[in-house]
């Protein structure tokens, strides 16, 4: 559901291929397969959470724009993910306006 909500909020004009991952381990597999030029990352996930994914990405040279999409809106959480290399933090529920703004700001769109 979280993924459907996000995909619906992505700009319709954005010509990209979308891969989905149900947890951090699947996300890392997609990343290693070169499918994550941009990664939308949840923090609360089973098996491997978002913080662990960011740490793993850092140890594997972080070749991806990571935008964290999270319900955890604590300022410390936002600071932590940025310290771990995420370029942006978007709070849930995500809207297409906010997403487009973030994507434009970082020149991904």
């Amino acid at each position, binding site marked *: *559901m*979280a993924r459907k*909500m996000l995909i619906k909020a992505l700009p319709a004009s954005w010509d990209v291929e979308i891969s989905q991952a149900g947890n951090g381990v699947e996300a890392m597999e997609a990343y290693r397969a070169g499918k994550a030029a941009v990664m939308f990352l949840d923090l*609360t*996930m089973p098996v491997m959470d978002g913080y662990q994914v960011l740490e793993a990405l850092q140890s594997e040279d972080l070749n991806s724009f990571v935008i964290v999409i999270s*319900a*955890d809106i604590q300022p*410390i*959480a936002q600071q932590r993910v940025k310290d771990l290399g995420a370029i942006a933090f978007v709070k*849930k529920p995500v809207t297409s306006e906010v997403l487009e703004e973030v994507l434009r700001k970082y020149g991904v769109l």
Partner: protein
Amino acid sequence: MSIAPLSDDQRDALQEITNIAMGQAGASLAGILDTFVNLSVPRINILEVVQVADSIGRLVGHDKEVTAVRQSFQGYLRGEAIVIYGQDGCKDLADLMGYDEDLDGAAEQELLLDVANVLVGACLGGISEQLRGIVDQPGTELSFCAPSIMAECAPVDTLINPDNLSWTHALLMEVNFTLEERNFISHIVMLMPEDAIDKVRGVIDQFIASF
């Protein structure tokens, strides 16, 4: 009487809505305590009331003693929220909020009630706010009764007595909050009767259909 279990899609959607609501609850708690709060992935289940006690026991540990606060709500949804604190919960809370060691019984209870009130309000507020966005109809407000202590240092298995509940099934929505470098852990559990469960199910189906 039996009630249909949630489909995978319904559970998934409700889990996400609860996740968002609990994020707000966690942020409120973090603000009060000035510390970082870890949130779990919400667990959602429809249970028979007789299973509720066992399910809570499994979450908390059957041998544990707990202190619990209950708060009922009505309006668009009707039910009862229960905030369960582990044994060390109160001491750690008091400590974090800068009380001295000798918190008396009344002050301790007040603290537990206040924290429960914040968690329940933020959580249900978050859920009803999102549901309002889906159903787009008036009258989705909730009102809350004052919270009360339902158990103090009592064995977890004695917490919920099915004979005292007026409904046969419950929608169990469970998240736990833990604090870093502290023993504090609290669980929040929402119990709703069948008619409210049906309402939630209907709204969730609309929500799913909108994607």
